[in-house]
């Protein structure tokens, strides 16, 4: 099923489908807000089809620690909310 990365439980994995705007699914505006961050997330390896694991999330709905392409990243929750993943549940 399709979920936002921020909805995953600690230890759960999913496959990236797309990175949307903060409001909803679909591609972010091409040059508007959100474009830079999508590019950044993709540059860090979160391209469609990539497997990503949520290792843990910081308390008080803080950032997420994720494992992607062999390395460990910390990403803010607002960014994680924009990443849509396919999860087997």
């Amino acid at each position: 099923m399709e979920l936002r990365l921020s909805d995953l439980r600690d230890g759960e994995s999913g496959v990236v489908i797309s990175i949307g705007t903060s409001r909803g699914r679909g591609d972010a505006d091409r040059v508007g807000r959100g474009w830079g961050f999508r590019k950044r997330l993709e540059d860090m390896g979160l391209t469609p089809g990539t497997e990503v694991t949520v290792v843990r999330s910081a308390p008080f709905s803080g950032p997420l620690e994720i494992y992607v392409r062999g390395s460990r990243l910390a990403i803010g929750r607002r960014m994680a909310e924009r990443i849509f993943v396919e999860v087997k549940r």
Partner: protein
Amino acid sequence: MTENKFRVALAGNANVGKSVVFNQLTGLHQHIGNWPGKTVEKAEGTLHFKDYSIDIIDLPGIYSLSTFSLEELISREYIAVERPDLVINIVDASLLERNMFFTLQLIELETPIVMALNQMDMAKRKGIKIDHEKLEKLLGIPVIPTVAVSGTGIYELLEKAVETIEKRGKKPSQMNYGEEVEERIGALSELVQKIHYPYPSRWTAIKLLEKDEQVDREINKIDPEILHASENLAKEIEEIHGHSCSTVITSERYEIASRITREVQEVTPPTKPPTRERIHTLTTHKIFGYPIMAVTVLLIFYSIFTFGDYTSGLLGDSLFGLKPIFEGIFGTGVVGKLVWGGIIEGIIGGVTVALPYILPFYFVLYFLEDSGYLSRIAFLMDKFMHKIGLHGKAFIPVMLGFGCNVPGCLGCRIMETTRERLLAAFVVTLVPCAATTVIILGLVGRFVGFQWALALYVVDLLIIFILGRIAFKTLPGEPTALIMEMSDYRVPHMKTVLKQTWFRLMDFITMAFPLIIVGSLVIKMVEILNLLEPIASILSPVTVTWLGLPAITGITLIFGVLRKELTLIMLATLFGTANFAEKMTSVQMIVFTLVAMLYIPCIATIAALIREFGWKKTYIITVSEILLALLLGGITFRLLSF
């Protein structure tokens, strides 16, 4: 012999041991400054190898060559436009795939490259084996395995670098994207070839398809037709793949990196989790992470202040002991007063801040950064920092700011974008530093009551919170969000950390000292010319009428620009007593402290701001803080005397 002089740039991701390689190569022949007109650090060094004199430029640690950060822009511009003779791409062998994503982009810049496959020891401990000869073949660039911390492979790296430069002219062969993308890159680069643009045409074509902001803008100026064509081609790719063109290209690039990695690397994960993993789990733990962080931060502050207080006193005493010697040489007339009170006391003031406080704070900053703990602190504090419009990484400069605003401001360069840096620095200048704490405790805490001192602290934090939010809302640009790598914990390479600390301290001293000396000379002149009283009376509408303070506080506030604690020291001198309760009411003390706390960053901080952001932004920050302090001071005066 100019023909034997080469320029070599070091490029690579963050946390790959790039600065260790830089230090192994350049030893003590290095210089740290900024890229011209930019707030990005530039480290340069020279080394002599065989008959060659090689200039090494350490490019910032980055993950891509897009336009996300200033570092990325500077790096690609340097490589493509300044054309170093060689780029040494430093790669973390234990994270080959991610690192190779960057290598592939370097290859696209069509520059001669040698890869240093670094941290081979780390890779081995993680059970990763890499066939570097095969990697060399697949990438088409020389690959040298290295362990920079122990110096292994550095000599071979240099030999290979020189050999590659000597055989100059050979561009690395390009990696191919999917057919439908490749076709359009070809068509577009044919168009680009016809115009004059400093970057390689294939690279430009790829960037146009990726809708790279800067390339789009620049090409549009030269020939809008090309931009138009690229938009159509990108649309075609988007229709084929169902993703934006930039997503498609990034994915394919990662696909290449991933494929090559699978071919050259064998992984047998260690059976039990290594210590660094357990430390990581503990230090990012929901419950234990925070007390560990609190203890670490407090320990750091406690030791720096113990050290700083002691050395500062010692240095101050011994330097002030030189006074008779100077008076012997220059006399006690106007010249003597200017030399001693202006120049020498300015230098002493600088030295007693720089060595005892800035030096250890720098050391701690680089030590924590190198060990990996900094990123864990940022992880834990991210949510909290968002409340003031910043993200987790900003916690570190802000924390340093409580000790001294100077390393705080300079530490803001760990933030990615100029906007974040400026925001963080603005917040840092509002943080009560050690000297401000002395005033709060020494005046209000002692003569009005501890709860009032505490209240002032709380007020300051509130101001930071409110202004942080306002600045966050008003500054243009994308909102801040955290995205960073949390690299494995490691033991910092002491020599590198010490050198980084030392050279950055030197950089600060050369920048700040002239300003500090000029500042104290000016104030000394004012004093000698007996202008202090007239200035105090000029300021009296503000100090007396608006703030309700004694007129002489105008003078002390002027001195406070040099060092904040001087406001208190001068006050005692001018009153002729340190029992301030005799001369000031409680309300006056509170208002005075509030103003002293906020009214201006001290001159060393101003120098740091100029160093990082230029005169204009420094001016805006300074002036707005003066106005803020006066506004709040006046309101507080009226509220409290009501």
